[in-house]
């Protein structure tokens, strides 16, 4: 799996300071290939989405879209403000099926036509299934990100389309774990930002796209859609915007360094930003972690924030009295460490 589309934007939003991630986004081909070329050995750990999750997601979408999206119409009727029978649906996979770029471009063209129709007050569908949007990052390599929400839904409240995403996670009472929710909000944030761009190119900023979207989870039994959850996307949209800005900075630096060569060739010269969550979602995590080995950040995000980039041997030295703090910040750390040690009955020098 290569880092493309909304996945890339979500990862950049989660860790905007990582230049290695920027290089991975620039590099053609799958992430594992990037790892192999940088590290020189094959990537032999678990990677990617589980097959069972993929199957569940596919089945959930199939159920939701079947019968001219009958279940989706029922779920989203309150948002559209019409009876399910009155809701107009257009599934762009019927217009132009496929996952290759030519199909994406064709669906982008159709989506733009539908947005234009709706702004002009012409008859337009209330639900657009599998639309295609685009976030431009030109000029430069990787000049755009294709963003494909599951659905654009006409919101009666806003008089505009807003994105909705179907998630087949097992949830109870429509509640989802905090980590999962943060990630899917970022996805929705990327979709909302792409929608802002598309409306903007049609009417030059006259339309204010609300920072809102819908998450539609599946019921635990039967893969039917739950009632849609309205999500406030102000934070997520801003995080994605910051991620894109960081990517533009990383791209500029990488382009300077590589001088026409492929991005992976300059990985060793880039500044990684290792975080705990990298272990769960980045193939380069072990490589980046090795750059903070023996330092506070190796212990996790909180020690990293508290102790900065201090070497662990030096921290131990403060405690044992074998190292002298060099400044006020280090003196504060030393005092606090000794206080904690005393509180817990740890014998130090």
């Amino acid at each position, binding site marked *: 799996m290569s880092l493309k589309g909304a996945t890339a934007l979500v990862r950049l939003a989660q860790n905007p300071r990582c230049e290695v991630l920027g290089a991975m986004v620039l590099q053609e081909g799958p992430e594992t290939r990037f790892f192999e070329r940088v590290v020189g050995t094959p990537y032999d750990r678990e990677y990617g989405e589980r097959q069972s999750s993929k199957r569940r997601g596919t089945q959930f979408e199939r159920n939701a879209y079947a019968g001219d999206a009958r279940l989706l119409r029922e779920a989203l009727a309150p948002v559209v403000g019409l009876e399910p029978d009155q809701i107009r649906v257009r599934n762009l996979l019927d217009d132009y099926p496929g996952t290759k770029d030519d199909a994406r471009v064709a669906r982008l063209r159709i989506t733009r036509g539908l947005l234009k129709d709706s702004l002009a007050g012409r008859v337009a*569908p209330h639900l657009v299934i599998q639309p295609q949007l685009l976030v431009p990052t030109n000029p*430069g390599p990787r000049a755009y990100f294709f963003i494909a929400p599951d659905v654009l839904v006409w919101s009666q409240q806003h008089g505009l389309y807003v994105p909705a995403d179907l998630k087949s996670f097992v949830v109870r009472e429509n509640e989802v774990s905090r980590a999962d929710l943060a990630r899917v909000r970022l996805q929705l944030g990327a979709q909302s930002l792409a929608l802002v761009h598309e409306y903007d190119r049609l009417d030059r900023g006259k339309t204010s796209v609300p920072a809102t979207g819908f998450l539609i989870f599946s019921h635990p039994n039967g893969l039917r859609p739950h009632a849609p959850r309205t999500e406030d996307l102000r934070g997520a949209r801003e995080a994605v915007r910051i991620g894109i800005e960081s990517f533009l900075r990383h791209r500029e630096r990488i382009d300077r360094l590589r001088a*026409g060569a492929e991005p992976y060739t300059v990985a060793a010269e880039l500044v990684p930003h290792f975080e705990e969550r990298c272990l769960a979602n980045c193939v380069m995590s072990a490589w980046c972690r090795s750059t903070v080995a023996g330092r506070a950040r190796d212990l996790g995000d909180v020690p990293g924030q508290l102790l900065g980039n201090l070497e662990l041997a030096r921290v131990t030295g403060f405690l044992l009295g074998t190292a002298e703090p060099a400044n006020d910040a280090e003196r504060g750390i030393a005092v606090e460490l000794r206080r904690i040690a005393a509180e817990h009955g740890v014998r130090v020098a």
Partner: protein
Amino acid sequence: MKDVEELRQQELELERRLAEVRHELSTRHTPDPVKRSAERRPLRELVLDALNDAGVPLNSLLIASVFRPLFGREVPATRFGTLSVDEQRSFDSSRPRPVYLCHCLTHDRGQAMKRFWARSDWPLEDRVIGPMSGRVLFLRGAIWVIRLASSAGEGADERLLYVAADQARDAGCAVKRGDFPYGEWITHIQAQIERYSDDDRAVRHEAAAELVARLGERELLFGAPGELTSIPGTSTRWNAKSS
């Protein structure tokens, strides 16, 4: 502990039973004559016949799911893409065919809806997709499949019954495991179609008249070309390797 002779007898008995099971399996796997002849016929002919039988444009996903039990034939999604290209090539060649497989057209722009297949000998208004036509076509396709299942009779591939039940469920009919009330399903679906059909027909007729005036013969079969879409970064400075 059993003696050797007893074990040998058991072994012989099991081998005999295995031979019987294998024989039974091989007889059950022999395709029926309809399936055998369908396997030899080109996909285009089978699709043309299916459309003729249904009398309504069909979605390629539905066609594939019906051909599996009906003809014992797997049709991958990409095969329909090839079929479309072949049909257009054939239209462009110097040897015209009496009928072509073609796509439905959107009511406003006349562009192809590639998953909806129709026959070129149908009136244009029957091949136009209005804002509500997707639902009408789904419902009419569902009725076609339910009728196929109901007329299949004893010995039919039971997967056809399940495809029919899936269609009924997707149309909002009550579906119970092992129960196939075809008549009730059709009545329920017909009632839904009636809700939309008048308005839908009016839109399609009006759109067809406009499209005929605007599009050429080829475009009326395979769709009008789309507008050019601007994609950033198409400069030749950035090639695939460097990006």
